[in-house]
């Protein structure tokens, strides 16, 4: 069971990243829970300064970018 967190105040790019993450989970066939974190303090305390950020199991894997579903799927399977 993996925990995926999407960090972002709810802008269009954050929604797109969340959608990509969902697709990645389906592609990779892993079990995962996706959380959307919108609180600025929470985002900043992860060390992410450019939204949207993506966190897999507590590790920040990208910030300020929207990785494609297959890139995220690769991160999910290799980790």
């Amino acid at each position: 069971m993996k925990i995926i967190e999407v960090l972002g105040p709810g802008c269009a790019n954050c929604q797109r990243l969340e959608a990509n993450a969902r697709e990645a989970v389906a592609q990779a066939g892993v079990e995962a829970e996706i959380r959307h974190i919108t609180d600025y303090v929470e985002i900043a305390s992860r060390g992410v300064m450019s939204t949207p950020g993506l966190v897999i199991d507590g590790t920040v894997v990208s910030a300020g970018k929207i990785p494609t579903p297959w890139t995220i799927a690769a991160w999910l399977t290799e980790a």
Partner: protein
Amino acid sequence: MTAIAVHRIHLPLWLVVLAGSVLWLAAWFLALPASTWLAFDVLGLEPGTQLGEAVAFFLYDVPKVLLLLTGIVTLVSFLRSFVSPERVRRALAGRNAVAGTAAAAGFGIVTPFCSCSAVPLFIGFLEAGVPLGVTFAFLIASPMVNEVAIVLLWGLVGPQLTLAYMAAGLTVAIVAGLLIGRLGLERYVEDYVWKVPAGAVTIDEHITLEDRLREAWRSTRDIVGRVWPYVIVGIGIGAFIHGFVPTELVVQIGGPGNPLAVPALVALGIPLYSNAAGTIPVIEALLGKGLPVGSALAFMMAITALSLPEMVILRKVMKPRLLATFAGIVAAGIIAIGYLFNWLAA
């Protein structure tokens, strides 16, 4: 099995890049003859008439501006994937005031920034030990001296004004940053900001060249998709000014004879945020009609650096006093730049 599902079939990368570049160049060189042909042959307008000149201005500027935007934003977005704010923060922490402020303003040009990132960025900088003044220098320079403004100014108005704009923008950012640092306003930052636990993070950049290019193209579509309506409206207004507004009127209202022109243009520029791409065609037309350089620079800087929506977002991390000081210093700096350039050009 998963490998098949994860990988997509697509054309070789170099082929896509090459085809895109060739198409771009072809469109660039065809824009002027095509617009002249369309305005004067197809539409049958007379060169030299008011309507003819306005329509030709519009038909030439629209493809030119959209091509410049697409090309340069793609290039800059690609280069930007190598410079993240997280890296900038590491470079800025623990420098002395003057060097740090200047470096922050410089980084502001190349670093991605959108107003939805302003708050995490502000908290992230301060919490990593970047001084308040240095943080502000970055916050001011980043939206003001950006690639969209620079490229459009260069392409439409010329290199001289572009360099003046960059120099003026960096000066305002550095001076404002040093001043805010000197004033000791740390207590007017919202208290919770100082209590955010440190979360320094180093992201393993295990992304491929293709990922970078893909991301650059995605953010280009995003940016161009958002600004093109403003560009069209801006060029429409510019075309109208170019064809119909008499030079004497512009000189009379915005010229050196009117001492209030600069502050009035700054006040007008504040609500016009995110329309930098749409403003430059208007500036182009106004300059052609004799608007003094200082007034034009002040107008543009006010539009990009001072924006109401960004102020509302920044209120989350700053007490009103700090926000007002920041806006006041930047506005005063822009007005001073406007008068200085008007005086130099006179």
